[in-house]
């Protein structure tokens, strides 16, 4: 079975649960999720860097799984849950702990990359917790290798993620 073809010229309604809130807006098939979030839903917490999957700034969680919003089409997330760095305090304990740890360790300066790093780190840490694994520094650095930060030199980010991992 295939679904109806969505025409390139028409606007299609996309329903998402964005950070726990039911939202909807219109999108043509070519619209990237990153632009849909920022321009159609006004959720500018998710940042756009390289737009080809390298820098990691646009990473969001789709149905809980950290993924690049710039390599995802808005029409692909119709009916799904999208969680971003704008998730409210108290909605995700790991994310809350990461935010506090980032603040304590000065793990951000300009903050551009932080939106994506927090989403990847939260997904990854929750999976480590689920299998009862306490990640070491090398593993944290490996996870962070999917993100570019030009301010911090990464070390404070590594310390912040490790602190939450071992809390």
């Amino acid at each position: 079975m295939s679904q109806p073809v969505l025409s390139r010229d028409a606007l299609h309604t996309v329903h998402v649960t964005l950070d726990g809130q039911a939202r909807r807006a219109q999108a043509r098939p070519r619209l990237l999720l990153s632009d849909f979030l920022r321009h159609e839903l006004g959720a500018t917490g998710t940042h756009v860097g390289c737009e080809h999957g390298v820098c990691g700034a646009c990473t969001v969680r789709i149905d809980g799984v950290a993924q690049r919003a710039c390599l995802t089409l808005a029409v692909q997330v119709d009916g799904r849950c999208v969680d971003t760095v704008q998730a409210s305090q108290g909605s995700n304990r790991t994310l809350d702990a990461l935010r506090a740890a980032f603040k304590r360790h000065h793990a951000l300066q300009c903050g551009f990359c932080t939106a994506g790093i927090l989403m990847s780190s939260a997904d990854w840490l929750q999976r480590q917790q689920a299998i009862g694994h306490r990640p070491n520094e090398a593993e944290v650095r490996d996870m962070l290798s999917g993100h570019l930060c030009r301010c911090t030199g990464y070390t404070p980010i590594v310390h912040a993620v490790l602190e939450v991992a071992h809390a």
Partner: protein
Amino acid sequence: MKPAAFDYVRADSAQAAAELLQQHGENARILAGGQSLMAVLNMRLAQPGLLIDISRSVELASITVMPGTVRVGAAVTQAQLQAHADVPPLLALAFPWISHFPIRNRGTVCGSIAHADPSAELPLCLVALRGTVHLRSARGRRDVPAPDFFTGLLSTARRADELIEAVSFPRPQPDEAFGFAEHARRHGDFALCAVAMVASSRGLRVAVGGLSDRPNAIDLPALTGPALDDVINELAWSLDVRDDPHTSATTRRHLLRQLARKATPPARRSA
């Protein structure tokens, strides 16, 4: 860095996707994880008229463990196979080298094989293990052995009306040992050179990625030490390795000679 306009359709089954491909041919592209295709679209290196999204197909999302093989459906992500209890041991060694965690979360195993980047790890492992690519079209099904599937730079034996329905990796035999080594400029970048090895009582199979336009494999007797080094050196010179703006052919051949030592499974390294 925004894709050109295209129509979009979601296909829930291999049959539905195959029928759409029959109708639209080369104007259509299969979208699975999109971790190669979406970047290509964003850079407008490809401008298909129709994207056929199979990422939500339940039928294509299964990993089937059979007595001799592990069959991986077209919508299975790299992260799902990496976390699976029956992940083939060579792939378990290679997965940490494949890009990064959020990319593996969405990128599919079959998508990487369909993309056929000569530096990519999954095509290399499929060739090293003599896996099989299962193709599906509205006309029927056919299976292509991995070494015949890759025909050149980003080129495969897949016809315009076919999709990769699944790929099969042979399960390990008791006498087999595996090795994998890679060098890239940054961890997770495309390999400048990658080597996969399968050692067994029959000998040593060596597969090389990143050096020429496709992964290459050779079967050797059970060589070790300097004798193995010599054969690897001959292999390095036999491949059509080119200079590119980032890396010279000399460097890539050197990397092969060094990485082959690292990739040789421990039991074969001495003796």
